C-alpha cells in the first residue's frame, strides 16, 4: 500500500543524496586544488562549507519532524535514524575536505616536496568509498555497503605508505622539509579519516537494511 509517508521519506532520500554530492564535490575540489596547487579552488572549498552546514541542519530538522509526526517503526525508523547519522558523517567528511583545502593553502606558494603518487591514489579510494556509500544508502544495498567497509584497509595502507615515506625519506634525513612534509602528512590523515567516516556510513547502512549491528564488530561484515 502506498503511503503519503513514503513521499516524505523519498524527499529525505533526495536531500541526503544532495548532501552526499556536495561532500563528494568538496573532496574532489580539495584534492584537485592540491594537485594543481590552486589556491582559488582551495578557497572555494572553504567558502562552500557553510552551504553544507546549512543543509545538515535542514536534514536534521526534517528527520526530527518525521519522527515527531509519523512516529515511525521498524524499517522506517531505521531509515530515518540512519539518515540522521549519515547526514552527520557527511558533514564531518566535508569539514575534512576543508581541512585539506587549508593545508593546500599552506603549500600553494611552496615548491612541491615530491611528486604526488600515493595521496592521489588515497584520494581516489576515498572518493570511491564516499560515492559507493551514498549509493548503498540510497539503494538500500547492504552488499555494496559491505564492499565499502572492507575498502577501508586499503585507505589505511596508503596512509601508512605516505606517512612512512614522508617521515623516513624526508623529515628524518632533512628536518627542514617538515614545513612541506607535515601538511602532506595531514592531508593523507584527513583522507584516511574521510574513509573512516565513510566506513561508519556503510556500517549504518547495513543496520538500516538488515537490522544487524556490525559497528565495532568488523568480523561480522
Amino acid at each position: 500500500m502506498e503511503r503519503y509517508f513514503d513521499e516524505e521519506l523519498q524527499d529525505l532520500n533526495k536531500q541526503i543524496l544532495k548532501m552526499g554530492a556536495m561532500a563528494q564535490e568538496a573532496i574532489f575540489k580539495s584534492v584537485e586544488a592540491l594537485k594543481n596547487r590552486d589556491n582559488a579552488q582551495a578557497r572555494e572549498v572553504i567558502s562552500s562549507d557553510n552551504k553544507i552546514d546549512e543543509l545538515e541542519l535542514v536534514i536534521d530538522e526534517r528527520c526530527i519532524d518525521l519522527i515527531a509526526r509519523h512516529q515511525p517503526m521498524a524499517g522506517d525508523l531505521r531509515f530515518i535514524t540512519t539518515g540522521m547519522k549519515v547526514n552527520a558523517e557527511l558533514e564531518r567528511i566535508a569539514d575534512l575536505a576543508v581541512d585539506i583545502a587549508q593545508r593546500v593553502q599552506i603549500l600553494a606558494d611552496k615548491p612541491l616536496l615530491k611528486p604526488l603518487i600515493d595521496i592521489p591514489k588515497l584520494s581516489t579510494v576515498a572518493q570511491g568509498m564516499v560515492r559507493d556509500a551514498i549509493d548503498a544508502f540510497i539503494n538500500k544495498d547492504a552488499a555494496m555497503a559491505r564492499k565499502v567497509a572492507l575498502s577501508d584497509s586499503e585507505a589505511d595502507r596508503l596512509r601508512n605508505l605516505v606517512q612512512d615515506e614522508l617521515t623516513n625519506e624526508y623529515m628524518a634525513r632533512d628536518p627542514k622539509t617538515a614545513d612541506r612534509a607535515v601538511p602532506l602528512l595531514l592531508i593523507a590523515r584527513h583522507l584516511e579519516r574521510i574513509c573512516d567516516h565513510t566506513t561508519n556510513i556503510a556500517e549504518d547502512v547495513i543496520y538500516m537494511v538488515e537490522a544487524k549491528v556490525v559497528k565495532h564488530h568488523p568480523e561480522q561484515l
Partner: protein
Amino acid sequence: MAKITVKGLNLWYADFHALKDVNCLFGQNKITAIIGPSGCGKSTMLRVFNRMNDLIEGVRTEGGVNIDGEEILDNNADLVALRKKVGMVFQRPNPFPLSIYENIVFGERVHAQKVKKDNLERIVQESLKAVLLWDELKDKLKKSALTLSLEQKQRLCIARLIAVKSDILLMDEPCSTLDPQATARIEELMRELKSKYTIIIVTHNMQQAARVSDDTGFMLLGELIEFGRTDDVFTRPKDKRTEDYITGRYG
C-alpha cells in the same frame, strides 16, 4: 518464567477457524501486547485465557493453555477459580451501578464463604491504593461508581480485579475511550502493577504497545505471525507481514 504457556491452540466459531495453531509463552510479571488488524483473533485469544469464549455458542477449541501448571481448557477446569485468577478489563469501563465501595467488594461478597466488615474495608483500601485512586475517592466511597470520570471508572474496574486477587490482568483496548492524559496515567498504572501482576493487553495503538509492553505478539488472520521482545518487534521485525503492519503498509 512463563506464566501462561500456549501450545498448538486452535479455536473455531462454528466453521470459522479463528485461531490457528498458536504457540507462545507469556512471561510472569511482564506486560505482553497483542497487536494486529481488526478480526485477526487477538481479542479471541485474550478471551481464551479466562474461557470467556465458552459463553459463545458453537465455539470449539483444541490444543493446550497452561496457567501456573493448570490446563485451563480441560473439561474439568474450575472456571470460577480461573475467572477469579484471570481478570478482564474491557474497552469501555463497566462498573456496576452500585457505590464505589460495593463495586470493589462485589467479588469478595460473591466468592467468600463468610464476609467480615473489617476485611472488606481493608480490601477496598488496598485495591484503591493499588490503582492510585484511594486519595481521590476515600471520602466518596458511598457515591455511585457511575459518577466517576472514564479514567476513574477504568481504574475502578482494575481495582475490582485486584480485590479478588486476580494475578493475570487481561486488557482489551483499555485506553481506547480515554484522552491522551488519562491514557498516559493508565499506562503508568500498568507499569506500577507489573511487579505483582502479569498483564496482557490487546491494542490497536502501536505506540501504546511499543511504550508499555515487554513482549509483543503480532496476529494476522488467526495466526500468531511473530512473538518476541517489543524492542525487536518494533525496530527489527523478522517477518515482512509484521513490518508491513507496524509501518502502516498493510492493507
